[in-house]
């Protein structure tokens, strides 16, 4: 595998992993081109396409596209299942994963990927083993005070003028504006 990209339906890159040495400029160019190509495809189309001299394998999970570039001799179907296994791992770790989990816990998404794939090849395909490794690492962590304000003293004046709502409230308002259609009901 040469690289793996996760991007949203809006074309925003959520995770990138490169297994070949490329310059930042090339990476940006490839990303832009590929995101465009994949987003332009219709839902029922097949998951593989030829792109430059690579084969692209992609799959969409809700609002997020998982996209891998593999070489000519590599197996497309098994790559598709690599993607699925990665999604399963994320899902198991976060418990019903969503795009926001990956934004908020991007470092975790990277750590899980490193346990699963290394150098572009599957390192450990057992779900149990990967999660065990990640959980062991988590156990090593110290407790962190989440109440700690990272931005104390540097608040945006506009926000201060906006009222007393906390950051978290703002998010909830944004998300909950239309009355609740239960996510779990919709998504199960």
């Amino acid at each position, binding site marked *: 595998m040469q690289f793996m990209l996760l991007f949203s339906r809006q074309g925003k890159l959520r995770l990138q992993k490169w297994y070949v040495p490329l310059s930042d400029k090339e990476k940006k160019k490839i990303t832009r081109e590929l995101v465009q190509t994949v987003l332009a495809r219709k839902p*029922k189309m*097949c998951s593989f396409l030829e792109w430059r001299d690579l084969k692209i394998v992609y799959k969409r999970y809700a609002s997020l596209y998982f996209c891998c570039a593999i070489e000519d001799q590599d197996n497309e179907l098994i790559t598709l*299942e690599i993607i699925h296994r990665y999604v399963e791992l994320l899902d198991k770790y976060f418990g019903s994963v969503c795009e926001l989990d990956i934004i908020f816990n991007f470092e975790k998404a990277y750590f899980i990927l490193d346990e699963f794939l290394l150098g572009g090849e599957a390192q450990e395909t057992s779900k149990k*083993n990967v999660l065990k490794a990640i959980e062991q*690492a988590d156990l090593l962590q110290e407790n962190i005070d989440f109440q700690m304000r990272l931005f104390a003293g*540097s608040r945006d004046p506009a926000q201060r003028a906006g009222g007393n709502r906390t950051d978290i409230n703002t998010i909830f308002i*944004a998300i909950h504006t239309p009355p609740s259609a239960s996510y779990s009901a919709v*998504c199960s």
Partner: protein
Amino acid sequence: MFDLEVLVTTERERSRKRGGLALGDPAASSGLRFKNRRPEVPASGDNKVKICHCFIRKLLCCSVRLNPDATFLSGGGSFKKGKSKEAEIKRINKELANIRSKFKGDKALDGYSKKKYVCKLLFIFLLGHDIDFGHMEAVNLLSSNKYTEKQIGYLFISVLVNSNSDLIRLINNGIKNDLASRNPTFMNLALHCIANVGSREMAEAFASEIPRVLVAGDTMDSVKQSAALCLLRLNRTSPDLVPMGEWTTRVVHLLNDQHLGVVTAATSLITTLAQKNPDDFKTSVSLAVARLSRIVTSASIDLQDYTYYFVAAPWLSVKLLRLLQCYPPPEDAALRSRLTECLETILNKAQEPPKSKKVQHSNAKNAVLFEAIALIIHHDSEPTLLVRACNQLGQFLQHRETNLRYLALESMCTLASSEFSHEAVKTHMETVINALKTERDVSVRQRAVDLLYAMCDRSNAKQIVAEMLSYLETADYSIREEIVLKVAILAEKYAVDYTWYVDTILNLIRIAGDYVSEEVWYRVIQIVINRDDVQGYAAKTVFEALQAPACHENLVKVGGYILGEFGNLIAGDSRSSPLVQFNLLHSKFHLCSVPTRALLLSAYIKFINLFPEVKATIQDVLRSDSQLRNADVELQQRAVEYLRLSCIASTDILATVLEEMPPFPERESSILAKLKKKKGPGKLPDMDDSRRSVNGSTDSTHSFTDVLNLNPAPSSGANLLIDVFSESSAPAAATDVSEENFPRFVCKNNGVIYENQLLQIGLKSEYRQNLGRMYVFYGNKTSTQFLSFSSSVSSSDLNVHSKAVDPVIEGGAQMQQILNIECVSDFSDAPVLNIQFRYGGALQNIAVKLPVMLNKFFQPTEMMSQDFFQRWKQLGAPQQEVQKIFKAKHPMDTEVAKAKILGFGVALLDGVDPNPANFVGAGVVHTKTTQVGCLLRLEPNMQAQTPNGNAAPPATDPSFPFGAGLPGSHLGICSRCRGEQGDGFVGLKGTWPKSHELKVAFDLASFLPPDGRVCERLLLRT
């Protein structure tokens, strides 16, 4: 920019679902949903560390607050987006400043804050912003003994590799400590970092260390896995730094490891290493077969967590099958049969009912199946397996899963090139053609085209080409060019009769003219020129095709070229008489681009040669202002030159110059080359004939595969009419004789006779009586040596002795060669200098016509006026006299004309002619056998170009020549120059038997500088 969309997405997802649109969700069919839900609020005490949530949320908030109703807007105006982006940048810059000041501050930061800020920097970088600081802090984190700090440090380094050498040393130091720590978690972090960065510096530092870790007996399994793949990455990026050694045999034995995860990682490593050093890893074959056999025969529960949706270790199976593809079929019979058994089991499993309806089950199962088929094709030795594989793929061709249809088409392409399964693949032709018509996904259709191309042979070529042509009418623009190339190749390769080929290509141009590249139409012309059995048909067909009111420019090109060459073959029919052909072509002229028009002009001048009866019409066209004064230099030049050529050259010369094109040398098909380039190496189904010889689909007598090569033929501008392929510039195997500068030497002896990008040839010559000496200077214009340089002179009439030359010409150097020339008797053909040398490996051939004409052997003779007229009058017999009237190119200048006549070799006799405007000369041509006296007279007509030659009465009065001061009657003498416009006149009188006088006169005439308004008369008598 980023977070806003998340919210919008979440919102839209939800409203979509409420609206009942959820069925259209592509994820709905997959086993697992990537759920849309609100992330949990991080609770304190949660052991999952969430480091910069607040920061991320801040960024979310500023977007949301600026666009309070953003979530309801489906389009999301760019204005608002821009504003939120601005807010984001503002926020980020503020944060960057904050972090910078924290890092620079006097107070030492504790590990937690350092980690927090590094993590923020990382997040900002991943958003697409540039980060130019913080590397040092990240490196510091590596030496922390707290796991999370170390982890963030490593992540930062993995993502933001910096080539700063000081830093790399520090990073390597940190990695070294962790590798030596014996703490498996830390070791894994270090190994992941090496594998992610994979830089050369890291390879230098650790390439010898990692193999030791990998094979050490006490290494933990998870570390072994990381070490194996880490080594794989280093081997890919810097293979020279990874030493092979004693550890290789022990690595092979990892295939026997108890832990399937270790086997999985090790198999990848061994495959990569075995591709480069197959001999070192030969023993892996038997181990891999054994392992594979155990997996495929195991019950699905045996492998516990390595079973994926009821498929036993699919990843490992695929990797083992990949490893086996590095080697030929095992020689050991037992091993071989065990492998065959495995492959049969895999094929059998494909027929079993699925154990699960989940797509993951079938994907994993089929992934193994496709890899097994790839191995079967790679071995290409078991006909039964190949045919079974083909049948299995045949089933997939009609599977409801698009992915499977796609892969089946792709895999069948490779099967088609095996002699055992080619016939079996052909049985699926109807299905594939159907796929071409019905598939909705363009990438699947493209695979179908590839497969049709691969399965094509002589038996089905007509049908496949017809299907591809009909598909072309509706094909996606993105793949049209490729289909055009494929059709062109197949049509050529499998043409039994070339009329079908011509029809196919013309159809191709009609259907998809825009996508027909130059290679294709060059090719059809080359084939028509090389095969005389198809020329008449081709002329007839293009003539008919051109009748269409709107035809593609490529058709006009082909039509123009073919009619120009072979229009005579259909001219017998009154419906396609020369004039009809010309009018047809010319009706397209004004709609065409410049290159096509240039080609048409060439076709017109060829018409003049083929059909003298349309000469006047064509000359009128060439003479029109839209041609002669065309703004485009190329067109103007062609029009002027062709017009001149048609005016001043005799029928013989025209016939020589405008001769039918000689057959093209046969080379590799450039269409094929182009297709290969387009598809990339290895992607093209093997069209190698030898493999299919069993079914007789191709035969070796087929000679046209290779005719068309684009790197052409060059001409080095020697012959204007070869210049139709105007891209051609390389002086490749030029065998055309260069005469470009030849006329310049009629009246002078020194100068540059030939020049191209590589070589310049200069001449210096002197003549005395019937002997001449010519110094040839070869100048190497390049900076590299010419090797194996040799030259020879071929001459039919002259004795030429050339001195041997040094075989090497250094870059930038010049070499001299001396030629001694003897004129034996009168002659008309100039000697040709043939040069051959090697430049950068390519053999160069150059032929140059040397400017040795009869007039070089003139000795000037002074004589008195009376003598002159007496002799002149004696020479009245028709064979003793040559006269020519021509149009002057430049205003007549007495001094220039004098210099030219002197250069011509005769003595200029002053005060001989009663008309001072006329020039008179006399000389003796010396040959070994005889000497011939010559008289010459040039009569410029200073008046306007009065009557047109065509209308002028032919003068037959032999006593005329000295009608001095009778400008109006000059034209009378042009009777011998019939066909000329009668604007100018040159005469030459001599007694030698061969009729080449006119040629000499012509050489001179073309050189003298008359202009359109001035008539000259040049008479030369012996």
